[in-house]
């Protein structure tokens, strides 16, 4: 890796947004493989994720890192002509969404981000997700793990309904379900019939690791 490539990783990881964008543009203009630029960003994201886990970074840094990544993505993607070596280092598939009636998405987005940088193929189906959408998406995407997020007390029932519906439609087999969000604890895990609950994104990553590698 040359000097500039290493610098890009540091700039993104250190939240130097303007300099990072300028350097990414420079690299792309000089003909560096856009896939390589994105790979560098990914490396930077790993550092950001680690710093978050270690309590050095918090929400502002995660959100900003996401924004920087998006902007570099916008610059790089049109330049990707053929992508023979599309990286496929995915550990397993995770479907995530905020249950119906609930619009909170910051916590869910963090979980998505952390799962993604930890090598999972994550499909985020947004907020206020109706039970039927979950069922459709499970059939289409075939995930190994479902993450339900919710912050409101009304989400307890939405989660319970969602999990019951998954059960009733016969989709629960081989599928692990984890819930999480502000008020979620063991009481609610038992109430909703989920396999596990998590207090934070690190719990989510650990649970997904356990639930996917065991089966393979």
């Amino acid at each position: 890796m040359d000097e500039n490539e290493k610098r890009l990783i540091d700039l993104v990881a250190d939240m130097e947004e303007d300099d990072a964008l300028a350097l990414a543009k420079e690299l792309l203009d000089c003909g560096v493989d856009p896939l390589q630029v994105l790979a560098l960003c990914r490396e930077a994201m790993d550092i950001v994720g680690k710093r978050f886990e270690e309590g050095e970074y918090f929400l502002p840094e995660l959100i900003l890192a996401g924004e920087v990544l998006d902007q570099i993505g916008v610059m790089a993607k049109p330049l990707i002509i053929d992508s023979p070596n599309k990286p496929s280092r995915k550990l397993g598939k995770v479907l995530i969404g905020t249950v119906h009636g609930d619009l909170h998405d910051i916590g869910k987005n963090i979980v998505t981000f952390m799962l993604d940088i930890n090598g999972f193929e994550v499909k985020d189906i947004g907020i206020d997700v109706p039970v039927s959408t979950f069922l459709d998406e499970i059939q289409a995407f075939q995930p190994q793990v479902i993450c339900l997020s919710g912050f409101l007390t009304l989400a307890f029932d939405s989660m319970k309904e969602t999990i019951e519906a998954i059960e009733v439609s016969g989709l629960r087999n081989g599928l692990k379900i984890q819930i999480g969000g502000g008020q979620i604890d063991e009481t609610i895990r038992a109430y909703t019939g989920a396999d596990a609950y998590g207090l934070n994104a690190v719990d989510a990553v650990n649970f997904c690791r356990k639930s996917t590698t065991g089966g393979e």
Partner: protein
Amino acid sequence: MSDITGETRYTEKSKRIMDAVELRPTDRVPTSFFATFWLAKYGGVSCRDLFYDYNTSCNLMRKAVIELDPDSYISPFLTMLGPSLDATGYKQLQWPGHGVSDNHSFQFLDKEYMTADEYDDFIFDPTGFYLNKYMPRVAEAYEGFAHFPVLPGNMYVTIASGPLVAQLANPEIARSFEAIQKAAQEAQSLMMKCMTFGQEMTAQGYPESFGAVAPAPLDFFGDYFRGAKGILTDIRRRPEKLIEAMEKVLVFLLRGAIGAARMTGNKFVFIPIHWGPDGFMSVQQFKTLWWPTFQRLLLGLIENDLIPVVLWEANCTSRLEIIGDIPAGKAVYWFEHTDLVKAKEVLGKTVCLRGNVPASLLTTGTPEQVDAECRRLIEKVGKDGGFILDGSIGIPDEAPVENVRAMFQSVHKYSV
């Protein structure tokens, strides 16, 4: 209900709360009743009925207060906003029958209501920004104000005639005034209803919990102007602008809360905290960005003889040392997930604590479990006074009535 007079009861309850605030021992742990749409469940009516019928809300609040006998209660104002929201065409909320089902609580819509480059406009002229930009964005009734001419700089006959006055002929401005007249009448009936209800409850012996509300300066911009993504990126991208804007708005927030408290004759100012908790920013960011203007808000309220009741949402364990830097016996800190035993260790000599029977327990637990948790809190946190028992976020909308009863009865069963 006992046969003591309303006046005696009122004095007794107010004294119990004030003793707790001023960190004196109390005859028993006081309670506060903080419920909104739970009233619908309690009364077997829909959230929509509650939201649109002043009498339904007031009657259910009265019934619940008399049954549960708390030492203070929250005005039903928040659960009867329906007609006012309709009249103003308010855009920042969805409410029962208007975006959410008849049986759900209203909900705030997280959006960017002020763009990043508008900080400068806000800082330069907050009133102008509100009038021309913010008000039209957040409520239909004010949309015509987007055309309201700029006033500063006018003088002499340009105030009497000419372009300034001619611009006021804009039919959209006229339409706005008309809509606002209707909204104003609705707001007046709502305020009247709340006032009469408050007086009636006072006569029955029940003090109201709050006389005013004030947001923390950073939360003010996060919740109502910039939205979640906006505020979180501002913290990194433009901290100086954010600080400048917070300084600017602090004066308005203080004046607003002091004015409202004078009008209601109630010293307690409710301050829910959204963006300060542990996970949101580093301790360093909290210390340099979040806390300084908030501390000044607290000190300003206290200097004016008001009592801030701060609801520290989520977990704030890493903030405990920092937020203890206020005069003793002048405020209430209500914690949602922060361990109150730990909070007592750090802050017990400084503030009265409030909370925090978990929402999950109140919603899905049994009355026995609720009772056991209340007992633990009363014995551990209530020791030596300075504690008000409440749910972690008040009474959750879905909590079974038996669980709520168990919470309010516990203070009569267990003493400190």
